[in-house]
């Protein structure tokens, strides 16, 4: 196993292996909950919580689980943490919980989480898994933040609910609708690829 420094393990999740822009994972929540920055942040934090805890748990009990039932076990573990996050939100942040609807429970089928368990946590030490999970979820939050900022600013003229665009600005309602989400993410993916190839060129 190629060993990376702890820093590199963390950093790779931000860009190199960014789950959204580079690996195209977790597309459903990325599209569904980014109509406002606050929703994006809430989603990101929930994912953060679930990913880190399940990574720690999976990596610490990896030896006990026979491979035939590992997926099932991971799902149960992840689902447990998702339930916790979901209940917690419903109890203490009811408006956000309402606007996120079924998408918090759907974290359980987010490829990022199950994928990291299989690809990383089940094979690495607790420490490394933790760092990896931190990096990945930060990358995910980053992506959520970028997309939701663009959508909220253009779609409502606000950022986190505060008016940021002048009165002259007519909000582009399409941005908070599905069509806008798809188009914006499509363009962002292209931008990410352009940045990637530019940096590669510069390196050479």
């Amino acid at each position, binding site marked *: *196993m190629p060993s990376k420094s702890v820093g590199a393990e963390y950093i790779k999740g931000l860009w190199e292996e960014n789950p959204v822009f580079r690996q195209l*994972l977790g597309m459903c929540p990325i599209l569904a909950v980014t109509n406002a920055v606050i929703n994006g942040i809430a989603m990101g934090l929930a994912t953060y919580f679930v990913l880190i805890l399940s990574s720690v748990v999976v990596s610490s009990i990896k030896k006990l689980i026979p*491979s*035939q039932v590992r997926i*099932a076990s991971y799902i149960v573990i992840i689902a447990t943490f998702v339930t916790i996050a979901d209940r917690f939100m419903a109890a203490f942040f009811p408006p956000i919980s309402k606007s996120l609807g079924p998408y918090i429970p759907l974290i359980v089928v987010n*490829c990022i989480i199950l994928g990291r368990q299989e*690809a990383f946590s089940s094979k690495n030490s607790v420490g490394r898994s933790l760092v990896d999970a931190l990096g990945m979820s930060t990358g995910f939050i980053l992506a959520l933040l970028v997309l939701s900022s663009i959508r909220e600013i253009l779609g409502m003229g606000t950022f986190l609910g505060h008016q940021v665009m002048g009165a002259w600005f007519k909000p582009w309602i399409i941005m908070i609708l599905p069509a806008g989400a798809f188009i914006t993410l499509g363009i962002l993916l292209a931008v990410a690829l352009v940045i990637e190839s530019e940096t590669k060129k510069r390196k050479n």
Partner: protein
Amino acid sequence: MDVLIPILTMGALGLIFSVGLAIAYQKLKVEEDPKVAIISEALPQANCGACGYSGCRAFAEAVIKGEAETNGCPVGGEETIIKIAEIMGVKAGEVVKKIARILCHGDTEAAKDRGIYLGITTCYAANLTGGNKLCPYGCLGFGDCVLACPFDAIHMGGDGLPVVDGKKCTACGKCVEACPRNIIELVPLAQNMLVFCRNLDKGIAPKKACKNACIGCGICARACPEAIIMENNLAIIKDYKKIDPEKIPAIEKCPTNAIGRLFKEDEG
């Protein structure tokens, strides 16, 4: 009591699920290539479809069949790629390192045009209409090989001839296949002496077509008969290892420079 219900429910679910799985594994086992299972194991099992296949197992099958690239799983990252490559990889024995060489020196200055070519600007298409160059054997200069190279190891030089980057070339042979005139050849990296022409005509015709064409005069073959022979009006290096360094000056007396060394500074 309230606390017990969820615990029991979950326990029961786990129990039913695992029993079901255990039975299923034993009763419904299907024989398959053991490699599929091994590669499947190495994959993230996210079954996310990011690879374009319907799941990790399907992707593994595709890898075995050679339909998918070993680095086709974007989720697993580097480790997975290395693992799959290890599983699939055939340990390469010690072979002579080869490199693709362009066997034509018909650059824009040396080789004359056959006319004003207005067709599709690929070598393959040009070749179908008889080519844009007067020489029917030489490089057409549209760079089909450049496009074919998966390693970005060939680019067009300023003189209208492709240039191979020795560092990047892996001798995969894609350019050899792509060249409609068969002037690219995989040659041992160590071979320094080459015939840079494929013209099978004799005398005036090749000379008219290209300054650097082999006119089949045979000077080189006479200078070093043990390594070089003439075949179909073309000098051919049969065995470069047999070229006597002392005879190189005589060989290089070629009137059209169709035969010569790649790097003169390397040798005496």
